[in-house]
């Protein structure tokens, strides 16, 4: 980790992941932002919604396509004090997934509560 933030102000940051882990670069570059952002001691939450829920699905094997498997890095988030991970219930249901299919512990919330979560944030980075 690089810079330590000396400013003192703490804002609520929400990172919203909406897309598949592969097929575009948004997912991996979102994760890089979360990891660097962790050094700034802000109040961080990460939300997986729509196809974003696949980013944390177990048993990925992108190596067969020479793509980097960065799914395991989500398990390291708690070491960076990024512990508030949320998933939208409807996104799981629409894809036939359950919390058990995910490789990290998350809080599953219905869409109505996701709206409140978003409303509470100061800074939203959507990928």
């Amino acid at each position, binding site marked *: 980790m690089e810079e330590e933030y000396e400013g003192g102000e703490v804002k609520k*940051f929400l990172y919203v992941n909406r897309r598949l882990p592969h097929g575009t670069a948004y997912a991996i*570059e979102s994760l*890089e932002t979360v990891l*660097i*952002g962790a*050094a700034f001691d*802000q109040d961080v939450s990460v939300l997986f919604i729509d196809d974003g829920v696949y980013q944390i699905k177990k048993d990925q094997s992108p190596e067969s396509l020479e793509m980097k498997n960065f799914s395991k890095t989500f398990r390291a988030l708690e070491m960076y004090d990024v512990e508030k991970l949320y998933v939208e219930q409807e996104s799981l249901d629409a894809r036939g997934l359950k919390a058990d299919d995910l490789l990290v512990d998350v809080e599953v919330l219905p869409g109505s509560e996701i709206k409140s979560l978003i409303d509470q944030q100061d*800074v939203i*980075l959507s990928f």
Partner: protein
Amino acid sequence: MKFAVLVNEGPYQHQASDSAYQFVLASLNAGHEVMRVFFYHDGVNNGTRLTTPPQDDRNIQHRWSALAEEHKLDLVLCVAACQRRGIVDEDEMKRNSKDAHNIADGFRISGLGQLIEAGIVADRLITFGD
């Protein structure tokens, strides 16, 4: 208000860079402050000086450089995204043993921390993407 702006897409392929530019221009004309424009993902492609768009169309990269000079804007290109996509300044050229650099005037290459800091310091972070 103190704004920070995030541009997530490259020039011409998506309208993000155009919309961001128009937003920054309007904000400045309305007396607001734009403390940083951060370019991420393909947005870093706005920072190459090697484009030659058709004469009868807007020059997106040029517009950013000119606006930065006129209003002393801080245009920042994410270093990790630049390395992936080949946007290079002199330091990066030496550091990564490349034989050229291509960064446009008014832009600087720096880390993602500059984006996070902008989110903390600004009243609003406005994102332009796809």
